[in-house]
């Protein structure tokens, strides 16, 4: 566990990215940001990551699409992906699971819980 855990946060809202960045980087995580699924995929094509945290509702490529793409690829298919969204309906949860999400965090999030959640899934 000597290596810093690198987290990619994917959210189209800059303030949400800033909040995540603040919460995670002050807790010792290395944070990268992408503003939607497409840019997340572009980033993932060139970078390594330990945990991905993604919003669901995003332009271009939403969170489900992103998870499906990551799981369908080879390079990052085994990476834990946490879904972060205000929508907490069971239908969405089930869909996220079916798409291949590793876990689920409802926003607004509590920093401690967020950090614990990331630690929990980080291999």
């Amino acid at each position, binding site marked *: 566990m000597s290596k810093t855990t690198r987290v990619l946060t994917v959210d189209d809202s800059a303030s949400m990215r800033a909040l995540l960045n603040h919460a995670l980087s002050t807790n010792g995580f290395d944070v990268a940001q992408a503003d939607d699924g497409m840019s997340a995929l572009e980033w993932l094509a060139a970078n390594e990551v330990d945990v991905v945290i993604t919003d669901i509702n995003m332009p271009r490529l939403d969170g489900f699409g992103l998870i499906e793409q990551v799981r369908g690829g080879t390079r990052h298919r085994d990476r834990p992906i946490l879904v972060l969204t205000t929508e907490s309906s069971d239908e969405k949860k089930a869909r996220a699971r079916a798409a291949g999400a590793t876990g689920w965090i409802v926003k607004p999030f509590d920093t401690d*819980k967020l950090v614990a959640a990331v630690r929990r899934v980080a291999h």
Partner: protein
Amino acid sequence: MSPEEIQQIFFAECEESLSAAEAGLAACREGTQDADTVNAVFRAVHSIKGGAGAFGYIALQAYTHTFETLLSDVREGLVAIEPKLVDLLLRALDTLSDHVEAAQEGGAPPPDAALIAEMEAAMAVGGAGSAHVAAPESEPEPEPASDSGEDFGLDLDALLDDLTGGFDTAAPEHSRWPVHLRPRAGAMRNGSEPLLMLREIAALGGQVEQCDVSQVPPLDALSVAEGYLGWTFSLPIDVAEDAVREIFDFIGDDCALAFGADEEIPPVELLSPGIECAAPPAEPAAHSPDKPAAPPPAAASAPAQVPAAATTAGQSIRIDLFKLDRLIDLVGELVIAQAMLDQRLEGAGVTATEELSLLESLTRDIQESAMSIRAQPIGSVFSRVPRILRDLASTTGKHVKLDVFGETTELDKTVIERLGEPLTHLIRNAVDHGIETAEERIAAGKSPEGTLTLSAEHRSGRILISIGDDGAGINRERVLAKAIEKGIVSADAQLSAEEIDNLIFAPGFSTAQVVSNISGRGVGMDVVRQNVKDLGGRITIESTPGKGTTFLLTLPLTLAISDGMIVNVGDQTLVVPLAHVVESLRPEEGAVQGLGSSQAMLNVRGRFIPVIALKDALGSPLGATSPEEGVLVVVDTESAGQAALLVDGIQDQRQFVIKSLATNFRVVEGVAGATILGDGRVALIVDVDSLVACALPPQDRPNHDRPNHERHAA
């Protein structure tokens, strides 16, 4: 980044979201009601809600929640998109905008109870409408125990509460109960790691009692993705079954669980047939794991859905404006340095033309790129207009259709920001004074609904914005009568139609017979004109009685660089901003006539304008004193109409970077600033307005043949 800065980002984002929602709803009203459009509106509101929750704006969050729920119904197709609904959504959006403002300024949230009730009434009957939603592939419950099967979500929050609670548990050795588990192949999927879950059991105080390795095949038959191992853990008695179950909630039925002493480790279920346990896979088809050769169809189709988007969509970063301005400033210096080098080399007879022209074109490219960073589409200003029109419709009863053209036209951010106010005023003016009431329109044979046309386009290095209405046009008789009444022009003045139109820019002028609370608030069109002028622009009117009025704004693309005419006066070099220059001419014989002892007037196509020798205005000992010796530059000013500036000669016409004299030296009347010329010398930029106003004694200002000499009318 401080929390305050993050909040700032949030509010900036709210602005964007509100604009996006506005645009989406406008498209809906125009008949574009496809999924993308509706989803964009939903996303915008959703995004505001997310931030509102994160930052603790409870009223905003509660309101957006209702709004979002309704939009969700719309998106799911549970609520039909009808004009009435779009209208409701637009009103809801207006209130949302007020909510955001209240949150930002810490004010009281707007009253929203009526709207919330209305939105709730509009929602799909029966609430969430989950029945309509295609049920996701239902996954079988973990077979041994289904008593808590209601929630197979992945709620980390709840889970972590239990987890942290569990750390404290110091397990007494004697009273323990067993849990049996066997991760299946799927437990390794989706980035899950069974090892971490076993560690969590250990963290709850679990101890391994037994590990079943009997199913592990010979190495050559071993598949790394399969779950061959099973465990029995013993847990302290005070650890609830649910706590264990929740650890595995994450992976659902991909790990078989059994609780209690009566159970055993669940049997192995392997995916690949042919190995000892030939049990058929219990996996639903859509779930079929670990077959890289055949990815799920959804994954395969996803790239096709988002083709060129990757290259087009707005990848953006936020930069501190100060840094950007510094860059632009430096680029300006670079342009000047390049020009200086050019001149110096030319003077020294060095002909490195190829390299120089390369440098020049690179410098120009850099300059253009730097400028384009500051540029934003004017759509951000235009997008506020529908709201203004709706507000106006409710106060005036005039319903106005909006046509927008060229909203992608880009111009400088500062110009955009400062354009909002004059534009708003012009629009209010157009609706209030320009467009007639529905009855009047019908009587005139027009559609009862007025039309407002906004357009923006680039034209010869400047931007042209037009705000046109199809109303009654300017009532020139009334304007003239009013101007005479107010003493703005004399009663016997002979004015052209155009000049009468321009009278509405006079301070204190208001033509509405009933001064309304919309555009007749004391500040009038003169302020608009001043705003536009401050931006280095001009405003003109085109009005046809019965057909409507169009205001044309010509603005520079940027404020950092202006076009100027470089003129010589004696030994000085001066810059006259091109925005003021109407024409330049060498007067014909007899065109300049004396007026009294000191004043000369220039006859420009039958109209007389005062001649000002720039030399005198500057107090310079050298320079042309009679028009025959030099060139006359006809300029247009705000306060004193046109005037002809006498200069020795015109040297060049070029772009210049304005350096403030006030910050570097002090304010000088008649001088707008300074710039550095190509030869490295500093040249003063003439403040045409104040220079002309100073040079002409008030009583000499002709006020009968030009409409906009309103200084002393104010």
